[in-house]
């Protein structure tokens, strides 16, 4: 099932996508290993096992176990400093950019531990797109912003079509189709964030990570982004960090609650988390008694 989905969604990108695992002696063994993983955790795309993350001497995440399902929206909620963003940045190894950050334990993407020696973080990020907290379009034209990922990944064929599709996918095409050569910085905040989403989906990733994508936006722009996230889940696995519990309740299929100290306290269907959580601490947090 997983295998099938992969080949259909990636049919034209097969030759262009660089392999996630660089071919190395012993690649045979890795292949069988990943197959075993996939069969065991059918439908799971990202999976953490005993994941600990440290910034210098401070532990940011403690012993995280989680299985993130394919083509669903998984929300991460919790108070500030609970490590939810840190976890998100572990998935595509953005934490590599921070010198003091150290990761223990395993984090699997499609059955392959992304912290293995033979995983190229750049190849990983080509499969896992990211949208950041505040909109950060490049100071380039709208077209060049969307085309950026295609260019750096060498997918330069049919670029106009891919850019158009990505902008349509991010519900931005109608607003910008007549001014693709204007600077991305001239758009409004909400449009900029949708541009960033278009930029992320242009390269057709498997997973899209969103780090509080609506926290810098006004209510109208926020609801546009939320509608968009629901549409995106048709095709992509979406993992979204938010500090807005109503937002998590509205848009996500599954919710993970992190609490202070970097613990993952509960992870379940969103409805269950908000209506009948197992843990008293989660209930206190959700009802506003704590946090």
């Amino acid at each position, binding site marked *: 099932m997983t295998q099938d989905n992969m080949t259909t969604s990636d049919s034209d990108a097969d030759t262009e996508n660089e392999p996630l695992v660089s071919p190395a002696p012993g690649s045979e063994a890795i292949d069988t290993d990943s197959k075993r993983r996939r069969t065991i955790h059918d439908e799971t795309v990202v999976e953490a096992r005993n994941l600990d993350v440290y910034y210098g001497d401070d532990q940011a995440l403690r012993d995280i176990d989680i299985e993130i399902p394919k083509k669903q929206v998984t929300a991460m909620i919790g108070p500030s400093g609970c490590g939810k963003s840190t976890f998100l940045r572990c998935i595509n190894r953005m934490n590599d950019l921070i010198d003091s950050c150290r990761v223990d334990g395993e984090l699997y993407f499609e059955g392959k531990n992304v912290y293995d020696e033979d995983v190229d973080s750049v190849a990983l990020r080509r499969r896992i797109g990211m949208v950041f907290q505040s909109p950060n*379009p490049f100071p380039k034209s709208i077209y060049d912003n969307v085309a950026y990922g295609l260019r750096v990944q060498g997918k330069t064929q049919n670029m106009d079509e891919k850019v158009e599709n990505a902008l349509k996918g991010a519900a931005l095409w109608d607003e910008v189709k007549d001014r693709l050569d204007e600077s991305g910085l001239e758009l409004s905040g909400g449009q900029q964030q949708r541009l*960033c989403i278009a930029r992320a989906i242009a390269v057709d990733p498997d997973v899209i990570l969103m780090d509080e994508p609506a926290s810098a936006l006004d209510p109208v722009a926020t609801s546009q982004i939320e509608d968009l996230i629901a549409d995106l889940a048709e095709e992509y696995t979406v993992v979204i960090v938010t500090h807005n519990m109503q937002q998590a309740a509205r848009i996500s299929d599954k919710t993970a609650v992190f609490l202070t100290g970097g613990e993952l306290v509960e992870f379940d269907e969103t409805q269950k988390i908000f209506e009948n959580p197992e843990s008293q601490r989660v209930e206190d947090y959700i009802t506003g008694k704590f946090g």
Partner: protein
Amino acid sequence: MATESGTRDQSWFGDTGQISRLPGRVFAATCLGATLFAILTVFGLLVYVANDAFRPATADPRWHLVFFLTLVLPSLALFGYYVARGDGESWVAATALGIPFFGLLLGSGVLLLFIDVLSVVAWLAFVLAVLAAAVVIKSHRRIRPAPGFLEHLLVIVGSLGAVAPAVYFGVVNLPVVPTPWLIYLLTFGAAGAALAGLVVARRRSSDRAGLTAAALVFAAAAGGGLAVSAVGIEPEIWVVLFTFAGVPTALYVESVLRERERPVGLLFPLVVVVGILLGAFLVDTLGFAGPDSWLDYGFLTSADSRFPEEAGIYPALIGSILMMVVVAAASFPIGVGAALYLEEYAPNDGALGAIVKLVQINIGNLAGVPSIVYGLLGLALFVHWGGLRPGIVIVGGLTIGLLILPIIIIAAQEAIRAVPDSMREASYGMGATQWQTIRRVVLPEALPGILTGSILGFGRAIGETAPLLMIGAAATVYTPPNGFFDLFSAMPRQIYAWVGKPAHEFQYGVMAAGVVTLLVVLLSMNAAAILIRNKYQRRT
């Protein structure tokens, strides 16, 4: 209690002396005094030197009156009007006057280089060689859109190392070459036309408009050349000045007019130019004598002489320009490269990080090392150890290049650091490698800042004298250097030589004219840096 609070209430708003502002006022006045003292001292010196250089008192008072009426009064009135409107017209006016001014300055510099240093045929061969290499690289990219790194490198090295030299020597050894002015037209004119076409095509999002603009520019370059040669001016001069001054001015005027962005500002340069022409015409026909300036056309175009009236700065001016070419070519790439390494690649912690920190501190220290010490370093490094002849252009340029290298590194580092990390994260998040991130995001964002800082560094370089004394640059040369391995003198060195001469006219008049020339070049460079900075600051 009640009465106490009552009295307090009544006087809370008044100046009863409880809150003393005296220390603050004294401090503010002292600061103002310091500022005024500094500015007025420097300004006074400049006026003194300019007075010596231009000697306005030697002119017929009616000459002053004519120019006051035709030039100063209308310009001041118009500028006052802009300021009163306060809608940014003065910015448009300054830009519209500045672009042709710098264009003319740059174009004259290029013309000087061609007259005295470069051969026209070699220039044509160079341009064709670079073009051929670019065509080879481009067509390879088109045939094989995604070459491996090694293949790509091989093609680049091959085309630069084999194709370009082959074309170069082929053209240089051609038995028949086009006339110089045709070469200028084919290189500068065509480049200006291509640039104008690209800009217009992008602005109007129409390829046809771009082609029309390119054709118009090329036709103007060619037609204007023919026209000026008919009245006895060399057509090369027209082609070069038109490309450097005319084309950018036209593009700017077009953008202001089309976007209707305060087009009133465009009147200012018109008023200035018409005022100068009208004034010149009037004093000429009415026979009012102008000032007997030390700084005149003859001073700029002739060599030094024993007679102050005939002394000029031309060889030193050429020497300074050539030296600056070496300085820029040597220090800019190395400085920017070092800054990129320190900011983007160098490790932050561990033993290596400590070394990087040490290097960083020492770059700051090197920026403060006295220039005479750099002169000594250049003498030891390039003359005694490198075996180059003392006092030649390349030794001077490399020595002063070393001197401003720390300044450029620090300026470039600041510009690179100012690129927000969110840009880098966005790029890495798209699966870009570090090299792609630097090339496509960091460098384009940091470039205006790097350029601004570097130009200020070059401004420091052009005024340096002490290192030139150390490396043995001549006090005076009578013919300008013909290449980078010729003996040279530079403007500050020549000025120093004039001050040492016993004749009063040299010590005051000729020296002052040299100082003003040097300052005009320096201030132009600084103004260019400010223009670049403002342009990009306004955009973002």
